[in-house]
C-alpha cells in the first residue's frame, strides 16, 4: 500500500518534528517548520504528534492511492479536491480508495501539512524521518518529492467509505495560526545591538522572495549593527535573527546552519515560530520586544491549547467509529 506521487508540487517533503541531539556534528533540526500545524494534522487522524507527514510549500502535489485513507490538512489554506469533492482543512477526512487527491495553490499561508492515518513509512535516520534538504539525507532519499515516487503507507490507513466523509466540526487555527492578520512575532534580546537600538521594532517588514526553509529574509530599511567588528562563528538557534552586512535581517528557520558569524540582533520566541513558517513572499511581519517570562508563558499556553485539542479530537474520533 503506497501513495503514488503523480506531480510533486513546488516543494513537498517528508517531515516530522525534526532531529535533536546532533547539532554538535553540524546536523540541524530540519522537521516541519510549522510544528503547531503539523502536530494538529497528526492528532486529527489519530497519529502520535511526531508521525511523518508531508510539508507542502505554496503549491501542492497530485497523489493517487488504492486504499481508503483518513487524512487531515492543516497549516496554509490550500485548494484541495478528491476527484470532484472539495476538501476543507483542520478536520479528519475519510476518502474512498482509488481516487486522486489534488492539492492546488495555498491561498493564505505558505506551508500546508498533509497527515495520513498510520503515517508515511519512511525510515528514521538519526532519530527522525525529516528530510534534511541541505544535508541531502532523511525523508524520501534526502530530497523533495518527485513525480513517480511511492510513499509507503500503513496497512490500515483509514476506514472503508464509498464517498468522502467530511465532519461538520473542525479545529480553529487561530490564535496560533491566524492567517487573516499580519503576523506578529515577539523578539527576545540578542547579543548584538542595532543602531538605533529599537530599529527592528520601528518598522514593519516584508518577507523577501529569497526566503526558504533555512531562513526568512526580511526586506525593509537597512539596519546597522552597533558594533561592526568581524565575529567568529558561534552556535545559533532556530529563531535567531542575524544581521548580514547588507542590513536586511534573516530569521533562521528549522533548516538553518548550526553556527553563524553574523551579528545576532534578537531571537524570535518559540511560540511564534509556527506563524513565521506561514509567511510567504510579500507578506508583512511586525516584530515586538518581549522578555523570557512572557515567552515562556506563551509557550506554555500554546502547549496547553495543543493538549486540549488532543483531548477533544480523541473524544470525537472515538465517538465516530
Amino acid at each position, binding site marked *: 500500500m503506497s501513495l503514488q506521487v503523480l506531480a510533486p508540487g513546488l516543494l513537498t517533503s517528508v517531515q516530522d518534528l525534526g532531529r*535533536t541531539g546532533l547539532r554538535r*556534528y553540524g546536523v540541524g533540526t530540519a522537521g516541519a517548520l510549522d510544528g503547531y500545524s503539523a502536530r494538529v494534522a497528526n492528532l486529527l487522524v489519530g497519529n502520535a504528534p511526531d508521525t511523518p507527514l508531508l510539508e507542502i510549500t505554496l503549491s501542492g502535489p497530485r497523489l493517487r492511492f488504492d486504499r481508503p485513507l483518513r487524512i487531515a490538512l492543516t497549516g496554509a489554506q490550500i485548494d484541495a479536491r478528491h476527484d470532484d469533492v472539495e476538501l476543507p482543512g483542520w478536520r479528519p477526512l475519510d476518502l474512498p480508495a482509488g481516487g486522486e487527491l489534488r492539492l492546488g495553490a495555498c491561498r493564505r499561508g505558505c506551508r500546508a501539512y498533509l497527515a495520513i492515518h498510520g503515517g508515511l513509512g519512511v525510515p528514521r535516520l538519526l532519530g527522525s524521518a525529516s528530510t534534511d534538504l541541505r544535508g541531502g539525507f532523511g525523508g524520501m532519499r534526502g530530497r523533495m518529492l518527485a513525480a513517480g515516487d511511492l510513499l509507503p503507507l500503513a496497512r490500515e490507513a483509514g476506514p472503508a467509505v464509498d464517498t468522502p466523509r467530511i465532519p461538520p466540526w473542525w479545529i480553529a487555527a487561530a490564535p496560533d495560526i491566524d492567517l487573516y492578520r499580519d503576523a506578529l512575532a515577539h523578539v527576545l534580546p540578542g547579543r548584538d545591538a542595532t543602531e538605533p537600538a529599537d530599529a527592528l521594532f520601528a518598522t514593519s517588514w516584508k518577507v523577501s522572495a529569497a526566503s526558504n526553509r533555512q531562513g526568512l529574509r526580511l526586506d525593509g530599511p537597512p539596519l546597522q549593527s552597533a558594533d561592526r567588528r568581524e*565575529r567568529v562563528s558561534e552556535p545559533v*538557534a532556530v529563531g535567531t535573527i542575524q544581521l548580514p552586512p547588507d542590513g536586511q535581517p534573516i530569521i533562521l528557520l528549522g533548516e538553518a546552519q548550526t553556527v553563524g558569524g553574523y551579528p545576532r540582533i534578537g531571537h524570535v520566541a518559540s511560540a511564534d515560530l509556527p506563524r513565521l513558517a506561514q509567511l510567504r513572499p510579500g507578506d508583512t511581519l511586525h516584530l515586538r520586544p518581549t522578555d523570557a517570562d512572557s515567552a515562556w508563558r506563551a509557550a506554555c499556553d500554546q502547549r496547553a491549547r495543543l493538549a486540549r485539542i488532543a483531548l477533544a479530537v480523541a473524544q470525537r474520533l472515538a465517538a465516530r467509529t
Partner: protein
Amino acid sequence: MTTPAIEPLGDAALLLRWGERIDPDLNRRVHVLAAALDVIRPPWLLDLVPAYATLALYLDTAAFGPAEPPLAAAERWLRARLATLADHTDDPAATPSARSIEIPVRYGGEDGPDLDAVARDSGLSPDEVVARHTAGDYHVALLGFAPGFPYLLGLDPMLALPRLATPRQRVPAGSVAIGGAQTGIYPRESPGGWRIIGRTPLVLFDPLRDPPALLAPGDRVRFVAVDDAAFATHARERR
C-alpha cells in the same frame, strides 16, 4: 579561575562564553567543559554544541515545570556546578579525552587545484606546502557549515591565506582546504570558497553511521600524504 559568562540564546538555549576570538586555550576550555557536562547530562539537555570560545546548551523546555522559565532553572543548575568545573578547565593539562585520527590525503593535481597557487602565495614549493600541512597537529574546534564539516585549528601560519575572491560552485566531497588560519574538509559536494589543496577518500559524514560524523569536536587530527594506490585502498575500505 575563568568562569564563562552565561547568555540566553533565545528562549530554549543558553550560551556559555569565554571570549570572542579564535584562541586554542579558550577552545580547550570549551571542550573540557563540554566533556564534563556530557558526563552529568541532565534529562532536559538536548544538545551540547562547542564552538571556538562558546558552548551552547539546547534545552527541552517541555521537561521543566511551569513555575519558572526553563532558562532560569537551567542557569541555576549550571551555576551550581560551574565553580567546580571551571577549576578543572583552568588546568592547562586538562584536555578532552580526544581521539587521534589520521586523514589520508592525495595532495595536488585534480584533487588539489589550488595547491600551486597556495605555494606561490606563501612563497613555498608545493612539496613544502604538503610537508607543512602534514606536519601540523590539528584539533577540531567545531563542526558546522554543513553536517560533518570540521573547522581545524593548528594550521602552520605560513599556510594561512585568504579565501577565494569568488567561491567555487562545486567543491567535491572529501576536499581538504585552507580558509584563513584554518583548514577543513568538505563532507559533501557543495559550493565553497576555501582553497583546495587535496582530497581524502574517507567519508566525513554518513547518516547511516553512529555517530554520523567521522570527527567530533575536540578530536586531534593529522593529515598523511598518500599516493594513488593508498588512496584507492582507503576508498575501497570505506563502507
